Every structure is written in C-alpha cells, then in structure tokens.
C-alpha cells in the first residue's frame, strides 16, 4: 500500500463502513446466546470474534493488499499453531502426572461451591 497517495474521502468511508460492521457484530455478540447456536455459545462467540478480527486486520491495520506482511503473519500463525496446539497439546494429553497435579488432579476438579453472585 502506497501511503503517500491519499484518497481521503474514500479511505474515510472505508473506516466508517468497517465501524458499522464491527458495531453490528458486537450487537450480534450480545443477542447470539438467545438467538442462534444456543448450545454452542463458545463456538459462536469465537466465530464472531474471528470475523471482527479479520475486519480489523484487513482494513484498520491496512493488511489488505500487503502480501509480504500477510504471508509473514500466516507463517507465524502456522508456527504458533504447530508449537502450541500440536507439540504442547500432545505433551498435555500424555501428561504422566495428571492425577498428582494440583490443576489436573481429581481433587481440584471435584470441589464444588456456590457461584459468585451477579454484580
């Protein structure tokens, strides 16, 4: 993207259009638990967040048309996914001290108490 060429009105219009899109998606975030995918709120919320993130990255962070940084980003995400999800995920799944750990042990998972009140 050549930053020296500025089409002020056109670029401003893009900013406002993205703002409207993000506001609409934020509204969807609030009504989703009562409107659709009620049994998969987590998945629905993350899906909406991904769409919002895509809009921000492409238009507010000006990554649209920037092939070098875009490719670098995808490459970095692949590295992160490889290490965090595959390598650490495999390690966690085969954690040999799971029963003895304070976090994963059955004693920590079994304790129940009252939920904190809404404030």
């Amino acid at each position, binding site marked *: 993207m050549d930053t020296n060429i500025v089409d002020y009105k056109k670029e401003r219009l893009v900013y406002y259009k993205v703002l409207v899109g993000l506001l609409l998606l934020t509204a969807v975030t609030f009504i989703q638990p009562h409107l659709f995918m009620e049994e998969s709120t987590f998945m629905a*919320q993350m899906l909406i967040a991904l769409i919002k993130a895509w809009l921000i990255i492409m238009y507010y962070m000006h990554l649209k048309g920037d092939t070098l940084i875009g490719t670098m980003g995808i490459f970095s995400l692949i590295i992160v996914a490889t290490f965090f999800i595959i390598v650490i995920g495999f390690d966690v799944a085969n954690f040999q001290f799971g029963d003895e750990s304070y976090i994963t042990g059955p004693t920590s998972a079994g304790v129940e108490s009252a939920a904190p009140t809404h404030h």
Partner: protein
Amino acid sequence: MSHEYVPEIAVDREGNEYKVQGWQDDFYGGKLGFWLFMFTEVLMFGAMFMALAYYNHLHPQEFIEASASLNRLLGGINTVILLVSALTMGLSLLKMRAGDVKGSKLMIWATIVLALAFLGIKAVEWTAEYNHGIFLMHGEMLPESGMSFGKKLFFGMYFTMTGIHGFHIIIGIGIMLWLLKRINAGKVRPDHHILHWNIALYWDIVHLIWVFVFPYYYMIGAGGATGGH
C-alpha cells in the same frame, strides 16, 4: 538529548567523503519491524488463551458459571469504547497523511479520552469484584476459601489477562501523548508519519486482543449457567 539524524560519512583512500545510506525514511522497514513486535504480543496473549482453553476444558461448567457472574453491560460498553477509539485513531492517521495535522491531533486526543474512559469503567468493574471478595489473593480467591478450583482458575486468568490488557492501554495513552509531542515538534509530519502509523497499529492490536478477551470471559456464560458451551 537530540534525536537529529547525523549521517555517517565513509572516506575512501583518496580522502573523498561519501554519505552512508540512512534508513530513517525506510517506511516499509519500520512497519515490518513493528509487525514483528506485534507478533510477540500475539504470542504472549496466545499462550494465555491456550492456558485458558485448557483450564476451560478441565472445568467447563465452572467457567460458564463464573462467566455468568461478570458484568456484561460494563464489558460491552468498554467493547464499544475501544471500537470507537480504533476509529478515531485510524482517522487521526488518515488526517495526518492527508495533511490535516490539527484534525489529526484532535483525533488523537479523542482516542486518549476514550482510553481513559475504558480504564475508568474497568476500575469500577474491578472495584465491584473486589468488594464481592473476588480478586487475586483476596477473599474468595484465597486457597483456603470455599470457591471451586475451576472458578479460581477462571477469575485468576480474568484478572491477569484484563490486567495485562489494561496495562497495554496505559502504555498506549503514554505513547499517544509522546506522539502528540513529536507532532508539535514537527518530527511527525504528513510526509514522515511512520511513528504515527505504528502507534495506530499498536492501538489496533490492543483493540484486537479485547475482541477475543471480551467474548471469552463475559459471553460464554450468557447462555445460562447450565448450557451454552
């Protein structure tokens, strides 16, 4: 201390002087370097999200119950505030590039005000949670308290991640004030705005992180304490 660029001079055997190429106007290099920095931010928050996902996998019901107890109204207002602040910061950069320096500065001030409003609301929220005995190493969060371990993990991660995010907001306010100083000094101009560009990118990454923090903490329990996960 002066930050003026002093070109390096190379001298050949005959004593002729040559100005060594400086990189002060390498716009793309500056942008690329800042993106590399932002990837380290993504790595840091990514690791915290992975830990959160793992704890969520271990204690799904407690996470939903804990999420349902957070104040979604205040969290939602903060979401909209950050969203609008991303627009004002983007417009400030656009105005700078278009030569409207005064308008650009006005938009930066608007972003700072919105950032302060975000911090103010976050402070109100944290205070209410503290008064309910929910805070790091306090009241219900103490190891000997009756709160279930899953909820302690949820709130522990909540205060850590929103705290680090809030710290990024404070840093953002600081560097925006610095940017205003550089603009007033004529160091950031319509024809030399890489600092402005990168600070706008920083503000966008702060917004981007919140885009995931908000639904993960505030919304997963919105479907009711027994479902929605």
